[in-house]
């Protein structure tokens, strides 16, 4: 909290300067993008959808269609119901979608629209048209942007999808539910590969691996292929187990908890698997579910990773890092940095998270004597003010920290969301042994390059 940040007696700043979070409906749209045949739909004014589309497109470089009920002044006064219904009807008619994911905005929450009721009314009033368009599912989630951040919006949407669609109608055998949180398309592809290699069928929710990183097309796909099939979501209640990543995710927010409560599918809550220790825990979970040993391919990946830890440790030993971003990503990165000998000096998130501090302590206490400074609910002004004194050697986080990296002339390793000033964000894989390997190489090289660039000698051999 801000009050912890300021050591002096002055009043904490009321305004947020250069935010380190986005708003809740954006997170919900990202989650809805990971369901097959789904069109995210914002119940609010037109600007929200357009702004978020642009923000998300600039990261993924993919078409991102987000529909809107486009409320005007009269709707704000008399209620947004008619426009919501008209919008749903239009999306259904033009997109031929399998799912419409309706997220509310601050406008519709404040004018008091009862969105779940409106959606129910729509289902009753337009039953014939729904039938005619293949009975698309409509999922709704409450995401006023004055409550929580994009992280909460994301998890609320995932939970709403499970809550409103999951059942125990079997779709496949030997499935395991994997709820990875907001990770990259490349991460999801790799996670699916891992689960497959254990002989399991993964149901990854949400699965943005194709929808937000699709191939070139000859015809414009109204809704991009890929995403978690609705039939698979319906079968989530029959899975062998659920694995949900997120040490900072409260049980009340976990989608796997819904499945456990309702269908008795055991929920395994793990940290996001970055680094050896967190990935080992993930592998252990898969071993336990399948009673299998770890496939040799991953033994080798693990072995190479340990080998590289040794080869690279001197370059980075004792370097000080500032990590910022979504709580679970920061925790996972902190865990990883701790095990390679980089000292996390500030772990910060723009989101409000009660579990953040404990999670950081859990992943660092085994190795570090002194816990890093941990701040939640902060903006880049706070991060700058705190980090300046800590004199970091490297920054890890979204591209929004670039100004700090430029000011202090230290490298920024771009991870998380958004990455608006580099190419290929959707293809950054940082999970598992292989992803950690890429990440490790990237960090070591960033440190080497900073040293090389600053050196008057111009070493070609480091």
């Amino acid at each position, binding site marked *: 909290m801000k009050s912890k940040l300021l050591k002096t007696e002055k009043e904490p700043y009321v305004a947020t300067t250069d935010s380190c979070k*986005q708003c809740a409906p954006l997170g919900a749209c990202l989650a809805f993008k990971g369901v097959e045949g789904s069109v995210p739909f914002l119940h609010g004014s037109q600007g929200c*959808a357009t702004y*978020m589309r642009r923000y998300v497109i600039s990261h993924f470089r993919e078409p*991102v269609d987000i529909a809107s009920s486009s409320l005007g002044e009269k709707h704000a006064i008399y209620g947004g119901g008619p426009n919501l219904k008209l919008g749903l009807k239009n999306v259904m008619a033009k997109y031929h979608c399998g799912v419409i994911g309706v997220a509310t905005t*601050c406008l519709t929450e404040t004018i008091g629209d009862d969105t779940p009721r409106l959606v129910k009314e729509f289902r009753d009033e337009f039953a014939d048209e729904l039938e005619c368009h293949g009975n698309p599912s409509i999922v709704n989630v409450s995401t*006023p942007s004055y409550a929580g951040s994009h992280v909460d919006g994301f998890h609320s949407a995932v939970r709403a999808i499970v809550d409103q669609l999951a059942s125990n109608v079997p779709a496949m055998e030997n499935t395991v539910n994997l709820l990875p949180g907001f990770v990259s398309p490349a991460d999801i592809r790799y996670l699916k590969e891992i689960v497959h290699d254990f002989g399991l069928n993964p149901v990854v929710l949400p699965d943005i691996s194709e929808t937000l990183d699709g191939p070139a097309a000859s015809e*414009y796909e109204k809704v991009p292929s890929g995403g978690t099939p609705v039939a698979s979501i319906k079968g989530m209640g029959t899975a062998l187990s659920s694995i949900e990543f997120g040490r900072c995710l409260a049980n009340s927010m976990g989608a796997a908890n819904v499945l456990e409560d309702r269908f008795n599918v055991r929920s395994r809550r793990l940290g996001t698997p970055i680094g050896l220790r967190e990935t080992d825990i993930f592998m252990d979970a898969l071993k336990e579910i399948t009673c299998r040993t770890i496939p040799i391919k991953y033994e080798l990946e693990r072995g190479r990773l340990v080998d590289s830890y040794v080869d690279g440790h001197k370059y980075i030993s004792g370097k000080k890092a500032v990590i910022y971003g979504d709580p679970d990503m920061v925790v996972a990165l902190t865990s990883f940095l701790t095990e390679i000998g980089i000292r996390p000096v500030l772990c910060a998130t723009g989101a409000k998270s009660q579990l953040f501090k404990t999670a950081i302590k859990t992943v660092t206490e085994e190795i570090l004597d002194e816990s890093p400074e941990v701040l939640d609910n902060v903006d880049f002004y706070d991060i700058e003010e705190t980090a300046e004194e800590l004199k970091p050697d490297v920054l890890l986080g979204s591209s929004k920290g670039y100004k700090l990296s430029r000011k202090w002339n230290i490298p920024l390793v771009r991870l998380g969301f958004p990455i608006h000033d580099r190419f290929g964000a959707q293809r950054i894989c940082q999970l598992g042994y292989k992803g950690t390997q890429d990440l490790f190489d990237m960090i070591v090289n960033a440190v080497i390059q900073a040293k090389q660039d600053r050196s008057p000698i111009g070493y070609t051999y480091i």
Partner: protein
Amino acid sequence: MRSWTRWKKATPPSPISWHEIIRKVPAMTNTIFAERKDQVHRKGEEPFQMACDKESLAGAVSQRACVFCGSRVVLYPITDALHLVHGPIGCAVYTWDIRGALSSGPELHRHSYSTDLQESDVIFGGEDKLYRALTQLIDRISPKAAFVYSTCIVGIIGDDLAGICRKVEREKGIPVIPVESEGFKGNKRAGYNAACRAMFQLVGTAPTDDISPLSVNILGDFNLAGEIWIVREYLERMGVQVVANITGDGRVDDLRRAHGAALNLVQCSGSTIDLAKMMEDEYQIPFLRVSYFGVEDMAESLYNIAEFFKDVDPQVMERTKALVRDELSELYPKLREYRQALEGKKAAIYVGGAFKAFSLVKAFRHLGMTVELVGSQTGTEEDYKELHEITDPGTIIVDDSNPLELSSFLQEKDVDIFVGGVKERPIAYKLGVGFCDHNHERKEALEGFIGMLNFAKEVYSTVMSPVWRFTPRKKALYSKALETDVCHEIKAIEN
């Protein structure tokens, strides 16, 4: 926990795919909503008539933004003002430093300040938070003025924005101006108007000494990639003084004495025309509509300015002619090379304001290219009439379009390049079509004579790239063309 006894060899995933389901749905061939039919026109097919300036259709995925966006776009480049967004975090975060409006001095505009309203503020009101945020920020960053943007929610909870602004203005001694930009109260144009009303509060509040009779304000240029500096340099060579940049590389003190200028130059559809009209009514300053894009429009704009001042300074026309001559003699030979390569290629245009579209149609013609589609988010009836006049038969003209329509037009017209903004880019790229960013995020200067050359380079770099032949759509076209050629050859041999 489920028992592992159910484990068998994993079967490949086989739930019924959504794509199979939708195949059973009757195919909808029509991409255009019935409600939007009169917002699309194909030149030559029927008498010209177009509807526009309507509220966006719910569910149509309009490319438009909101009132707030309109205000933010116009005011944001004022570099030494505090821009505080009063609302939940989203509105501020999505407009943080996303546009390349450059400054030659202060850079307060490149930060994002928000009151970040929380649930309790929505319930109990955000006035106190706004007051404290404002006073703290003014103390911390010492701006020359503050703009306080209203967002959707502020319009609903009814915070007295104007009252707080007045109070802080009295206490801090700088202008603190509320911007009535609640997102839902109209579209982007309403936001432009709110911004103009906000700026008008500054105009006329400082002395106008040392202003030449040959003087202008530059309205509707946002100094993207340093463009306003190009225009200022031309004006300097003509002997015309610039009083205020409105708003690219803008300063509060310049705005305050903008009423001392002899003429307002207005670029960009709609965004600042309201301010020009207010200044005309209040201070009798005439305005001239100009465009700095493309050879013809740039030259014509400069000539019109010279024409305006010719009675005050008879030499100004001579200087302007010399300027245009110099610039063109340098530009034309370079442009010719690009034109040779681009001759006959096809373009599509979808931009925010229609005024830019006029210039783009002409600019493409200059490169020997045809325009197959042209549209805008916020064009007026007059704008579309003009577009209808300057385009070729068969051109599609569209108002407030959406991805489905745009993608179908691109495919139908088989264009080589699409000009638009970030939201249009992936539509083009996914279909294997070249793209030029002509929106506020652009990092290449496209104004002025040098801008025309940059534009040609941009168009060339994408249209002539070798990558298209590998994309599925073009690949199909290539092989079809090849097939046809082969058929012709075979037939020729047979005959």
